[in-house]
């Protein structure tokens, strides 16, 4: 979330799309209800189904799963056409005025400039800003003179070097230049007319106009006082264009001036208690703690890595840009010191070579594909039920059959540890499965202390209440023990490159039982030598906890496990254990409750809550403001900004971008499939893309080649299927909990009344839902909350599939259900940016059992 749960109460308008917070985040959803009760805020629910969130909405619009970019693109068009945009914000805080290189081409045919069909990749040279100066009011002249496209430097020996941003960007503050970002954006979405939106999404034109009129009404006549928020979850991420859906939302919020403001932002709900923290800690193959970029083979040493990953600012010459990631060397070297301790020295590039460099996409679906193809031989799964989560459960089961060994750390008997006796595998077949499986009893949440980070970025400590049952052990003790035993083997027996194992810093008070308080302190970081602030002369002694990331050094005199957590556990104590309940501003900031990264800021980019002069857009919702007397930014939240940057210096509020401004146009391939989002169809879709039938899908999506990677045609599989959770159950966990099983006793499929009538299905009849990959069996839930839709002139049904049941659980063990996981149906195709599989909007057919 850019904002936070409680902050939702400050909003005037909510667009909830790709998420169902009333069901999946009920306690956070109270703040949406508060906004409705106390501010008369409006709620728009756009969803393939009428959900329990929709039941509280002022307006519900049923959309075809996977057509979100068409809807949001149409919204952009409507806002521009009807002047419901934040002009001052747009010019000063976004790259709307930046001029894009000549040669950049919009995707009228579904492809941006630079596409290489053979490799299915883009050359992003033209996806960049023009260098130069102020072209304000000189649109004609600039267009006439133009800028010759820079020749791509010849590089016969290898790939062209990645394009870099120009330091001095050409710009036109009147937004008239035909190649300025604003004009290009306007041109791109001019194609998303209400009629086109209706063809793609199935939303009748009048309903669409009602929805976009309601949402953009906060910026009626350009008035900046009101604020709208956009709230989403995995209904947006789980598509082969998921990142681009979210980018469209971000563009809307920039266009309407809603970013950085109380009651605004783009807010990801996030489905697991510490999914934010686990991402912050970089439990993903391509990332390092604190979102530092993971090293790749071309990073032949630390210097090369830092040169690649440390941006230089790129902006109009008179403006200022903080470009916070210029501090990447400080963050990275401090991380290497935390990982490798004394073995990380200036002389050996702080042991940069120790860190593994992946040579390919190693993300989730590739793990299963590479295991199926025999490359991966062993797997450890802790609290992660990979068979159930899929996609394509059958593929994952058959991959595990080929592994030598599997270690599962769990608290219940799960489907992954029992893959070898999944339904349909006979005892004889089990004898041919040679995988050794260890199932280790771990600790439940109440048995562990430690911190978790919620989706509002609040890092909160919890305390253990009870010991683990029986012989169950704390998860961290198990990981520590495995690591220490492997280290012991390398010490005694030697082996391949043992250095990183032998030198890994593991200096905890009890190595086999690392106290999590010590680990939390390592995340914050400490001084390894005496440090003095050159301005204030403040001294931090060697061994002391650092006050924050501003103290991190690139010379090895500091260590820090995760730079964004620096400040969480200082010499003043554990900030993450604070329990101050005061909220002086009344805006739900709670500055003394726990601690939020970065630097205890509760609303990100909050400089944008003020106009260019440093005055709040809405005096009733003051977050921070410029205090001329003290020469500082002050307020109710920690400024997410350089504290003494005078408004007249025009420093951009989006300090993490080298431009300092928000990116309507994403340059040089930071988003790999296009600088602007374009609507593509899901890989399995009932229609050809009406915008460009010859380029229906995202051109960057790749498919695997195992026998399990099959795809259905709309002729055979005509129904659009989407998957989701129910409020009564949590993922694959509470199927072990009698109370939750009582609430939803059996798996069901939600199907429209009209489809049921067509097929002769009545409510509670057992039906099969069949995709090209598998069959799911459950009872029919015949409902009017899903209706048939007209998609590009074709009648299309959607059905909905809750994901909770599998083949181990209370009901499953009593054989009260068919023991089929929902992800038997889903395809292993992913978003080229985030590598998230397309679990929403695939094709099925249904049959009565």
């Amino acid at each position, binding site marked *: 979330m850019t904002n936070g749960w409680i902050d939702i109460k400050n909003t005037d308008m909510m667009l909830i799309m790709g998420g169902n917070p009333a*069901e999946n985040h009920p306690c956070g*959803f109270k703040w949406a209800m508060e906004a409705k009760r106390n501010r*008369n805020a409006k709620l728009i629910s756009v969803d393939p189904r009428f959900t329990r969130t929709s039941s*509280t909405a002022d307006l*519900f619009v049923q959309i075809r799963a996977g057509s979100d970019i068409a809807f949001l693109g149409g919204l952009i068009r409507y806002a521009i056409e009807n002047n419901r945009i934040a002009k001052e914000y747009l010019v000063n805080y976004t790259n709307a005025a930046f001029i894009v290189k000549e040669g950049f081409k919009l995707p009228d045919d579904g492809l941006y400039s630079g596409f290489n069909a053979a490799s299915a990749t883009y050359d992003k040279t033209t996806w960049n800003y023009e260098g130069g100066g102020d072209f304000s009011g000189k649109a004609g002249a600039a267009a006439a003179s133009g800028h010759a496209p820079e020749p791509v430097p010849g590089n016969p020996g290898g790939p062209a070097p990645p394009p870099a941003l120009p330091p001095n960007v050409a710009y036109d503050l009147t937004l008239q230049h035909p190649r300025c970002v604003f004009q290009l954006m306007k041109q791109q979405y001019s194609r998303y007319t209400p009629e086109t939106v209706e063809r793609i999404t199935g939303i009748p034109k009048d309903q669409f106009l009602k929805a976009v009129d309601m949402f953009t009404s906060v910026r009626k006549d350009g008035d900046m006082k009101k604020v709208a928020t956009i709230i989403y979850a995995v209904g947006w991420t789980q598509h082969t264009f998921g990142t681009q859906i979210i980018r469209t939302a971000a563009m809307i919020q920039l266009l309407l001036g809603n970013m950085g403001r109380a009651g605004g932002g783009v807010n990801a709900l996030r489905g697991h208690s510490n999914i934010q923290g686990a991402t912050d800690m970089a439990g993903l193959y391509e990332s390092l703690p604190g979102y530092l970029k993971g090293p790749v083979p071309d990073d032949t040493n630390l210097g090369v890595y830092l040169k690649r990953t440390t941006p230089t600012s790129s902006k109009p010459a008179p403006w200022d840009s903080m470009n916070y990631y210029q501090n990447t060397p400080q963050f990275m070297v401090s991380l290497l010191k935390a990982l490798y301790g004394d073995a990380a020295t200036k002389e050996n590039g702080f042991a940069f070579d120790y860190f593994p460099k992946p040579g390919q996409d190693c993300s989730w679906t590739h793990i299963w594909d590479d295991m199926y193809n025999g490359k991966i031989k062993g797997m450890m799964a802790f609290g992660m039920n990979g068979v159930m989560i899929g996609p394509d459960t059958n593929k994952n089961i058959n991959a595990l059959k080929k592994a030598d060994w599997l270690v599962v750390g769990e608290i219940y008997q799960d489907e992954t540890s029992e893959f070898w006796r999944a339904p349909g595998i006979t005892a004889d077949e089990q004898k041919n499965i040679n995988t050794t499986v260890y199932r280790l009893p771990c600790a439940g949440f109440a048995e562990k202390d430690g911190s978790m980070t919620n989706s509002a970025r609040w890092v909160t400590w919890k305390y253990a209440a009870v010991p683990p049952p029986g012989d169950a052990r704390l998860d961290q003790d198990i990981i520590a023990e495995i690591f220490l035993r492997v280290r012991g083997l390398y010490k005694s027996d030697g082996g391949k490159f043992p250095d990183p194992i032998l030198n890994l810093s593991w200096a905890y008070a009890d190595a086999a039982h690392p106290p999590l308080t010590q680990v939390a302190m390592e995340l914050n970081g400490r001084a390894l030598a005496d440090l003095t602030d050159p301005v204030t002369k403040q001294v931090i002694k060697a061994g002391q906890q650092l006050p924050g990331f501003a103290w991190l050094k690139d010379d090895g005199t500091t260590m820090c496990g995760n730079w964004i957590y620096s400040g969480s556990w200082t010499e003043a104590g554990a900030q993450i254990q604070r329990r101050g309940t005061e909220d002086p501003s009344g805006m739900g900031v709670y500055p003394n409750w726990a601690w939020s990264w970065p630097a205890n800021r509760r609303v990100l980019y909050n400089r944008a809550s003020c106009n260019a002069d440093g005055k709040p857009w809405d005096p009733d919702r003051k977050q921070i403001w410029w205090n001329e007397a003290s020469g500082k930014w002050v307020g109710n939240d920690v400024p997410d900004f350089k504290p003494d940057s005078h408004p007249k210096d025009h420093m951009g509020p989006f300090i993490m971008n080298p431009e300092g401004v928000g990116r309507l146009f994403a340059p040089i391939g930071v988003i790999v499939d296009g600088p602007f989002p374009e609507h593509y169809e899901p890989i399995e879709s009932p229609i050809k893309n009406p915008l460009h039938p010859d380029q229906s899908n995202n051109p960057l999506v790749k498919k695997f080649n195992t026998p399990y990677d099959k795809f259905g045609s709309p002729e055979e599989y005509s129904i659009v299927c989407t998957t989701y959770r129910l409020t009564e159950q949590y993922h694959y966990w509470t199927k072990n909990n009698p*109370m939750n099983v*009582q609430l939803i*006793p059996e798996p069901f499929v939600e199907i429209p009344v009209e489809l049921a009538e067509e097929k002769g299905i009545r409510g*509670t009849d057992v039906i099969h839902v069949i995709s090209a990959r598998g069959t799911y069996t459950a009872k029919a*839930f015949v409902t009017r909350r899903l209706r048939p839709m007209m998609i590009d002139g074709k009648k299309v049904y959607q059905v909905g599939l809750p994901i909770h049941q599998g083949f181990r659980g209370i009901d499953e063990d009593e054989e009260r259900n068919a023991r089929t996981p929902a992800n038997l149906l889903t395809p292993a195709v992913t978003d080229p940016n985030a590598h998230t599989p397309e679990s929403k909007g695939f094709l099925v057919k249904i049959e009565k059992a």
Partner: protein
Amino acid sequence: MSQASTEIVRISGHAGSVPGAGLNREFQVCKLVDTTTCIGCKACEVACLEWNGNTFSETTFDNSYQTMPETTWNYWNLIKFNEHEREDGSMMLLMRKDQCMHCEDPGCLAACPADAAIVQYANGIVDFQEANCIGCGYCITGCPFNIPKFSPTARKVFKCTLCSDRVAVGLEPACIKACPTGCLHFGTKSEMKELAETRAEQLRDVSGFADAGVYDPPGVGGTHVIYVLHDAKNPELYGGLPKDPHIPYSVRLWKAPLKWLGNLAIVGGLAGLAWHYMRYGPKKAEPIPPDDERRV
């Protein structure tokens, strides 16, 4: 507004002030259920089960999110779901938390023949005293809301207590505390009434529900559980909430003569006693079986 009967109002030979005197304290409690902000999450159902020690019972999917058709003797709190299509074709999912209404004029109590098996506290909570329950089931016929339910194993009747054990020590009922959206609210009757009316007004003026209103049925003297409904003219849409509930005529008929007879002290008393003995004999309340047996 009634006060607890043992609240001190005067103190003999006491020089100082009377504690609490002169305070405008109201003891009537009330649960407000705003169906327009209910998200049907069933947190109240689980919180009720957990606090009251009523655990698992088997349910079946019945083409609805609703957990079971009606409340049961060990499931006192149930959200009733109704997919409702408005005249303009738009969809509504009406969700109403069903539980004991804690009537000001409780039909169950009126119908109950067992001494002190049902009591009404000064705060309005109607509480079953299972130790005194004889399992006759008359309370079931006396309730216009179909709430008290007979347990065949315990051979007694059970229902929501409004968490009288929690309220007694100053805590809110378990369902109230759990409710994520604040659709449930707890306080004094007059304050909940005011809150409900304010919300209904907002629904009428801002949200376009012209018939929004508060459900506090006068036929049972008002209730200590009140609802805000989008459509107060059609409470039946909300899982069969009765439009104008009354204590059943049979119970009135049966109790009214007794009451009248009671006024003729001797005759009435003797007649009542004699009838009661003839009808039930010297039956004593059965002890409640141990927990395990109850949790079938």
